[in-house]
């Protein structure tokens, strides 16, 4: 049940593959967050008063 809640739109039969890919997704996301923080967020903070 817990698995269904974490990946709500993944059909039951595809769960093992979906869960196995989470680590890849996490590391790709981490890379891109770093880029966004370096390239985009400072501009937003400066221009739009984002804390």
């Amino acid at each position: 049940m817990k698995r269904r809640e974490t990946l709500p739109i993944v059909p039951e039969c595809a769960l093992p593959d979906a869960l196995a890919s989470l680590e890849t997704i996490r590391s790709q996301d981490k890379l891109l967050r770093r880029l966004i923080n370096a390239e985009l967020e400072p501009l937003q903070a400066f221009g739009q008063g984002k804390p």
Partner: protein
Amino acid sequence: MTELATLTIGEALGMLATKELSPRDILESQRRVILRSNKKLHAFITLLPTGVKQTRRKGELHGITVAVKDNIYVKGHRTTAGSKVFRNFVPAFDADVVKLLSAAGATLVGKTNLHEFAFGATNINPHFGDCRNPWDDERISGGSSGGSAVAVASGMACAAVGTDTGGSVRTPAALCGVVGYKPTYGLTSRRGVVPLAWSLDTVGFLTRCVSDAARLALLSFESKSSPTLRRPKPMPLKRTRIGVPRNILEPLDSEVRSSFERSLELAEGEGARVVDVKFLHIEEIAASRSLITHAEAASYHREYFAAKFKDYGKDVRRRIAQGLAIPAVVYLDALRARSALLEYYRSIFRRVDVLALPTTRIPAPTVKASKSDRTAPGIRTALLGLTEPFNLFGAPSITIPCGLTRDGLPVGFQLAGDIYSDPAVLSFALTLERLFPNVSLNAR
């Protein structure tokens, strides 16, 4: 293989004009190649009823045969997208690219094999047979437009249409020794094309020379007022700055490296300046493209996937499952990252006129290695790592054959430019093609 079967479009049109040959001669000689080789190479999924009737239609491509990747709609003929899921799907209309090429008089000869749903680079296809390389049939064609590349390389059609989301036109073209051109994103219509990832998918062309690719593209571009619609002419290389992103090339097969370096020397011999370019953020580029591709593909497939899970091949099943697991915010961040990366990419062209790099890091691998769980992931990266950046940016890119390995396998030389610089990229390619050795199965 007869030489008739492997004429370029330009050569064939010349001979058709002087009545040295007829459309039927071309069609029949290519049909013979198909009958002889298709069972082994698995280039076509469906052959269209003999196109002779179509050859009566007049137009710029009158008498020219074109093969169409089987994820592109042809009205009244099944379009499987290389999958059991769509095995009985018959579209009710032609894709725009099919409509435009048919209106120009092209004869459509068949629907070509692909990696299932264009979601892979090998063209190992569990439903319609593994597409094999005509240079060595123990090796893969590459994909996902593998059948299109095989059809052109082996003389089954004068030219072919494919789609490219991460390298799917350029990779098989390079491995099979033909030209593969991916235009700037959006110049060719995606209407009537089964999508892989809509913000990256681009209809492209596989041909025997650069000028043929330009000819098909000009006939297929959506907006006839586009500034990119100039017929390219060979461009003198004197003082041209060719940027080479050496920091992203490795690990490069040694024979691919030597063919590539020899090609650069030929360009330098004509006065080009080869400039080292540090290509930054390659890992971020790959991550962004991967997340966007997987998420968009999963969005398209989610209903079919739940209903027909077992009809998908194992590798594509795994990739769609991965796409379904991507949270919306992660997809959105991948799109934001793409905007930042695009600015960086465009800035490169303040320093150079065009980028040059090998199309793939390796020549065609064996079917066996491409199926092994141990070697397949490395092969995928070696086949797509140098093509995918240009999909993320929507940039024009072309591969031209530049030599053969000692085992007689073709090597591709890739050029890429700033978005909408298609005429310049094609012009450089026209010039370089004349400097490079003739790579064709006939010349072997």
